[in-house]
């Protein structure tokens, strides 16, 4: 499968959160990963304390 590309802000967050693009569902045009998608994935991975 083709890895969806991400936006610059999403790329920063992916790197900081040590997430791979494959772990995030992209909702942008053509499955592109938006910043909001990474924030949602981060929220899901780290349950609220």
């Amino acid at each position, binding site marked *: 499968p083709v890895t969806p590309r991400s*936006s*610059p*802000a*999403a790329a*920063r967050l992916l790197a900081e959160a040590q997430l791979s693009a494959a772990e995030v569902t992209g*909702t*942008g*045009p053509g499955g*592109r990963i*938006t*910043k*909001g998608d990474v*924030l*949602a994935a981060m929220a899901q991975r780290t349950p609220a304390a």
Partner: protein
Amino acid sequence: MAETYDLLVIGAGPGGYVAAIRAAQLGLRVACVDKRKQLGGTCLNIGCIPSKALLDSSYWYVQAQQHLASHGVRLSGVTLDLATLLARKDRIVHELTQGIAFLFKKYGVDSYHGVARLNGGHQVVVQQAEGTALPLQGRHILLATGSVPVELPFLPFDGQVVVSSTEALHFTTVPQHLLIIGAGYIGLELGSVWRRLGAEVTVLEALPRLLPHTDSEIAGELLKQLTRQGMQFHFQTRVIEAQADGNGITLVASLADGTRRTFRGDRVLVAVGRKPYTEGLGLETVGLRLDPASGRLAVDADYRTAVPHILAVGDLIAGPMLAHKASAEGVVVAERLAGMKPRVNYSAIPSVIYTHPEVASVGATEQELQQKGIRYRVGRFPFSANGRAKALGDTTGWVKVLAEEDTDRLLGVHIIGPQASELIAECATLLEFHASAEDVARCIHPHPSLSEVLAEAARMAWAGKPLHS
């Protein structure tokens, strides 16, 4: 036997001519009918293009008079040659309309000059200028007949003293005192032109503010700037009567407190709005009519009217009456007929007012976000802190970015300032690609350029502070 086309387009404005070209590019057999000899519709002939030509010429006149000296450019005198200014505008219009005729030839679009009338079923009759009625058949018929200025019942257009935007594009002398009814973009743009060329200009608006659909902060700043340029504004001033005489016209307006006030001018531009134009089109012959509530023609997602083989785009149907909106719909209609499935994103249609400073917007206003209960952050950055704007000597205004609180997604951008019309194009792209404010800040903008103001406003929306403030 009438000639049969895959697509028969009625109207060669931005909706119709673009649909015709795109359909022809995709291999459909296409004809386009227009009552004007010059193609291009309202936008090219009596709208966008001539008004921009006048706005630019009048801008340079003011620059020469008032601003070149600050650049160290001294002129011994500046005079207005209105005839040349108008001729330049006409030449630009002519060249562009010829360009469409060239494109029609290039792509094999048959062009007919005459008034088209639906004649039931798939038939259209073109009443040609020389008197002959030419029947044509369309497997699909696209209505793109556009819009015309709204007339006030007590103030009918006479083309001389009481004029629409059309006549206000070619006054052969500068009016002494131009009254304008309506503080929408048409009134503000044409008012700017004649104010710059020396007319006294008074704008009468029934609503409490100018540009009701524009971000209120931005509209407020534009009002301040236009007032500074000498335009006079009267809000909550509803014109109710008019008395024309040999020397000009007197308008009677009702004010918010119920009192009346008169305004005297030698010309009045009625710019209260535009309405769909379907005169003589014969909608009734196919059982169609404009929706009484909206005044527009109802269409589905494929731009089909209630009669499935008859489609409509542009100013005839719902949505902002903008050339690029009509063209976007024209492209989508043509491509859908050819089996493609594109769509128009109505939430990312930019709008521009070509005053000075220019105003441009795309996406939601703060007011809309508040109404929808969406939590957002605002970033602003002024042109006065931008190197390129300083070099241009054009530092009025700012960029305002609205981003969603939780996701940082860009929801709207509103600009007042130099070249806002150009800067907004990037913003429309950003919205289409679901960019966040941080994305905008991280995209590398050339230095020095006005576009850095957008990046800084976005940075402020995202990080709470720009770099240069």
